[in-house]
């Protein structure tokens, strides 16, 4: 049965970016003050100190340095944090240790140092291999820098390198992408994530959209593009294991799958979430209060929610529908008791519509079905 494995994941949020991208809603501070960056790992260690008791003795299957721009961290600090994790928990020898890096913030040496610090999976924020679009997206780097970072990443010694791409600006066509794609595939990344550009409230892009600027590719064109990628990726041997994520078989991100299978995780840093099965809690997205509290020896301000059966059920359904392995009714029944009668007919007609396959027990969405995961979830949950 595919359930969360018994290990936990650790997430470390690094809330610094050289410059904010106009579409981004993650918690991150613009401009990097060296003192803050130096002091930050210290705060993380203090938070760990205060939280570790709850998680004592747990086995750790994956660690993820996300952001923000974690590649701004000093590799020595990464190493210190890794040592602390190893000291407090049982980190699996095969644990997946990911760090997100942005081209333009890393050189050959830094990548090698990060690798030496214990990072074995690098997630590279390439976004596009086209300068015009990189400018539209407000990124730091250009196409050359992206390719250079990719080259260094491949030789630095990481076990896995994956690449993030941003899809859905009005500047794209399948043709422009095909050229970028061909180049990208030459580097044989272990995974590629296609993130569809979305409107996040409060962002600069959202304001531009409100003022009437065309900042998104229209619905059908975006879908055509995403399905076009799907074909190309499949031809290149990749597996579409989640809505936005592709990987060579066996190279799927363990940490991310852990989230989707509702595994438990400890989050450190402002805005980071922790989940212990029945309860999710998160630090407020404010470095100031985070830092103040920890310096006073207290836990940073946070919020939490307790998940009842209804919430658990919704999460379970929608998260499974986001994965190619899909919704397993037998598993559902074991967890939640019987499933609503109408599901069967609904899943059958959804499959007949060409959105996946259903054998009476498991509904597995295909590429088109994954793009409708939320719609299907809303329909099933009624």
């Amino acid at each position, binding site marked *: 049965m595919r359930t969360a494995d018994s290990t936990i994941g650790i997430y470390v949020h690094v809330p610094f970016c050289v410059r904010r991208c106009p579409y981004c809603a993650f918690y991150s501070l613009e401009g990097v003050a060296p003192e803050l960056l130096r002091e930050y790992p210290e705060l993380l260690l203090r938070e760990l100190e205060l939280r570790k008791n709850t998680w004592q003795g747990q086995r750790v299957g994956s660690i993820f340095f996300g952001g923000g721009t974690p590649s701004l961290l000093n590799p020595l600090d990464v190493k210190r944090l890794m040592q602390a994790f190893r000291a407090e928990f049982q980190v699996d020898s095969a644990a997946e240790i990911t760090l997100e890096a942005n081209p333009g913030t890393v050189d050959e040496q830094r990548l090698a140092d990060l690798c030496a610090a214990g990072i074995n999976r690098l997630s590279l924020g390439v976004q596009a291999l086209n300068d015009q679009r990189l400018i539209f997206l407000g990124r730091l780097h250009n196409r050359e820098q992206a390719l250079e970072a990719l080259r260094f990443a491949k030789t630095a010694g990481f076990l896995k390198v994956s690449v993030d791409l941003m899809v859905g600006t009005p500047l794209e066509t399948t043709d422009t992408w095909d050229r970028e794609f061909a180049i990208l595939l030459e580097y044989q990344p272990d995974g590629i994530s296609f993130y*569809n550009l979305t409107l996040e409230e409060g962002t600069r892009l959202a304001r531009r959209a409100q003022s009437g600027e065309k900042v998104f590719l229209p619905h059908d064109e975006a879908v055509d593009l995403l399905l076009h990628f799907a074909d190309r990726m499949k031809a290149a041997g990749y597996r579409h294991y989640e809505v936005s994520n592709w990987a060579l078989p066996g190279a799927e991100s363990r940490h991310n799958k852990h989230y989707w299978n509702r595994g438990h995780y400890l989050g450190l840093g402002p805005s980071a979430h922790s*989940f212990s099965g029945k309860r999710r809690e998160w630090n407020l997205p404010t470095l100031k209060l985070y830092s103040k509290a920890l310096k006073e020896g207290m836990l940073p301000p946070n919020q939490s929610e307790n998940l009842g059966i209804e919430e658990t059920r919704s999460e379970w359904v929608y998260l499974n529908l986001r994965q190619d392995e899909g919704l397993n009714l037998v598993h559902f029944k074991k967890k939640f008791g019987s499933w609503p009668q109408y599901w069967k007919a609904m899943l059958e007609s959804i499959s007949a519509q060409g959105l996946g396959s259903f054998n009476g027990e498991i509904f597995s969405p295909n590429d088109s079905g994954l793009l*409708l995961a939320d719609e299907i979830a809303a329909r099933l949950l009624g």
Partner: protein
Amino acid sequence: MQNIRNFCIIAHIDHGKSTLADRLLEITGTISSQQAHGQVLDNMDLEQERGITIKAHAVTMNYQDPELGAFVLNLIDTPGHVDFTYEVSRSLAACEGALLIVDASQGVQAQTLSNLYLALGHDLTIIPVINKIDLPSAQLDVTIAQIVDLLGCEASEILAVSAKQGLGIPEVLSAVVRRIPAPKGDPTAPVRALIFDSIFDTYRGAVPYIRVFDGTLRKGMPILFVHNQKQYQAEELGTMTLGRRPKESLSAGEVGYIIPGCKNVRETRVGDTITGAREPTDNPLPGYKLVKPMVFAGLYPAASEDYTNLRDSLEKLALNDASFTWEPETSMALGFGFRCGFLGLLHMEVVQERLEREFNLNLITTLPTVEYQVTLEDGQVVLIESPAKMPVLSRQVTVEEPFISAEIITPAEYFGAIMKLALDRRGVYKSTEYLEGNRQTLHYDFPLAEVIYDFYDRLKSISRGYASLDYEFIGYRQSDIIRLDIMLNGEIVDALSIIVHKDKAFEWGQRLTSKLKELIPRQLFDVAIQASIGSKIIARTNVRALRKNVTAKCYGGDITRKRKLLEKQREGKRRMKQIGSVEIPQEAFMALLRVDDDR
């Protein structure tokens, strides 16, 4: 009787009828100035918001004239929409005079005219009053000239006031007592009292508002409703100030209320004559009409568990509103609901809003229809007011539809546009009368079905508000009427069927299908929308399946937020009506009414 004056105020909307009424109440000490701020005459929220007065009410004021002494003034309020013309006419019948208010900055407007004609039709003495003279944009001279032209009166007869600032109000009262004639009548004759309105009091039952024309009604006396032929007792009677003020009797010329102890306003019909049961009149007051619903629509609870609540609410509402009818009906698409009858669309909207607001119900309303008279193959004649009940037509079945005779008063320049509209609405031209001031009265017969939708609004818009409409039912006439069905993915949605004239079926089919295409959101499946007559498809379109609805990123920090988004989305879906595999937004049913907006 000599010191009684019964009058009403007529005006175009917003010209200051309510404000002036408040001033009158204030200056006569009937209410305090604080109370005046609430604008006492319009006391339903809804009326205030829509700027229309739906229910007529009456207030009695005591006025001391400096020269002529003490007077009793009865101010009778009138509703102002074509759906309620009959109620207006009964209120006017209770008066001897009317204040005609004209906004100094707007001048004579459409409703000024239509209300004036109604008042003149009842031989009321008109006192012209120009209001809002305090406004910088007031055009006193122009407005005076307009009124002189309209009424053929002297400029000196026109009063100028500011209701808002309380200027010129004593002059208004002075004119009321001097110009409006005292009521006539014989206090010793058999009682004849006109019901011009009737409200429902939860504790006392129906409370008719009456104007006594002859005789004297006394507390405790047995009374008879002439048309309704029901006998009651005058449990209580009196006059209306802010509340009810009981008295021992009401005599010829007086206005007030009576509590007969009946449980239902249906027994105290507006226009009926109350007389004494022991010495009944054999000459009831003229003009009685049993107003019947003309427009019918299905009302369904959006959530089926609200059915009982809806039924109870309709029951309560009907106590208060004699012209509203309801009976249970079932729809394949919408489940259990009610087929309700209304005077017109405005009445329907008012009822619907009251249900939603006062009874906290979420409703789905189907397209309104009129009542058809159908002769079936076996010769049986049935009345059908629901598309679902309309039989499939064959040559043996004949359908007759209700016709009205309409009187449209319009300045000559809009004549052409109105002719065109009339033609489009299957109007049958009758005659034209030429009026003074370059105006005309057009007489037309129309199928009622063509008038209920947006005829009035269109008439107003093509005549820039100047044309007025008055109509009355004249009978049934045979027509080529058919049922037009709407199918979603091949299934007929009964709640979307309409009854139309054959010549208009194609146009309606096109309009409904394309409007539905706009209203139905893209969903998991293609939705084929078809309009059909019997088995013949006359229009089709489709809503292409949705292709993407998923958030791109979903990591540890997004799971809660995403779940909440999903909950919202599910909430949205719950507000949709599921018909077969198709989800239709509730608003779609009503929005179809407004198909004409796009033309």
